[in-house]
């Protein structure tokens, strides 16, 4: 057993001078080496299958977050602009403007920062109803 292990360890490495010397004096190891070589040679000849599927399609994971982050930033920016409105110096609606134009202007008027979106929309609807009752 010890001798076989010696053979298997050595045959996996570069065959050194001391290994060749050992083989010359050990018929058991010499026979083992011959058989191991035969098994190895046959295996190399048998194991020749090809990987046929080809190269998998992959994307760079480290860059994939950049377009997503950019898209998210744009969406957040647009949403913030809608919430903030055009500012306090926006022109007031004139009497000749249509109701739809008034409706849009109401939506774009600035709201206090602590007002929730749903509350602000309710406020818009109430103000629109008032405008319809008292044009």
């Amino acid at each position, binding site marked *: 057993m010890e001798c076989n292990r010696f053979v*298997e360890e050595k045959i996996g490495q570069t065959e050194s001078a001391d290994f060749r010397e050992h083989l010359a004096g050990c018929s058991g190891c010499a026979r083992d080496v011959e058989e191991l070589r035969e*098994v190895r040679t*046959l*295996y*190399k000849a048998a194991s020749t*299958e090809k*990987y*046929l599927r080809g*190269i998998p399609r992959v994307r760079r994971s480290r860059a994939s977050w950049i377009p997503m982050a950019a898209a998210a930033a744009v969406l957040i920016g647009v949403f913030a602009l809608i919430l903030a409105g055009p500012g306090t110096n926006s022109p007031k609606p004139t009497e000749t403007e249509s109701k739809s134009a008034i409706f849009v202007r109401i939506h774009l008027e600035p709201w206090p920062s602590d007002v929730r979106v749903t509350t602000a929309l309710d406020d818009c609807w109430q103000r629109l109803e008032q405008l319809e009752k008292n044009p």
Partner: protein
Amino acid sequence: MDELIRGLQAGRPEAFERLVREYGDRIYRFVKRLAGERPAEDLTQEVFIRVHRSIEAYRPEGRFESWLFTIANNLCIDHSRRRKPEASLSDVDEDLAPERFASGTPEPIDRLEEEERRRALLKAVERLPFDQRQVFLLREEAGLSFREIAEMTGCPLNTALGRMHYAMEALRKSLKAYGMQ
């Protein structure tokens, strides 16, 4: 090799193509014999996808092949834990399809005998217990040293050598019937 690794880490497509071209067949054969024919192509693809994902973290402390086949080995172990081993004999027969093999031009009778012996050896490899088969394939297919195999599989060097010894004994016995002296 350094150039390949630098190319992979830089995300160059040609480096990835070279990786698959150079290691695809070996990884495929390793995975096929360790995990079975059916999942072999999927697992091979997964090996390359894992390499792609983790190559930036790769540090060349050992050989690249050792790192690469560690990924393949771990995927095979995960797969084996999830599923029972497949019936291997039909897989071997199926996998002897001509297009899978490199072309050669031996004489017809010699070729039949040679194919018989090859088939017998591949069957014998697939019949080996998992631990022996793993060491055998890491040595013969991946080309790792026994020290690398011992480190990868987390066993002492003597255990790795012992598993190889028993694997070789089993293969030699299986080939006795085919005229091997």
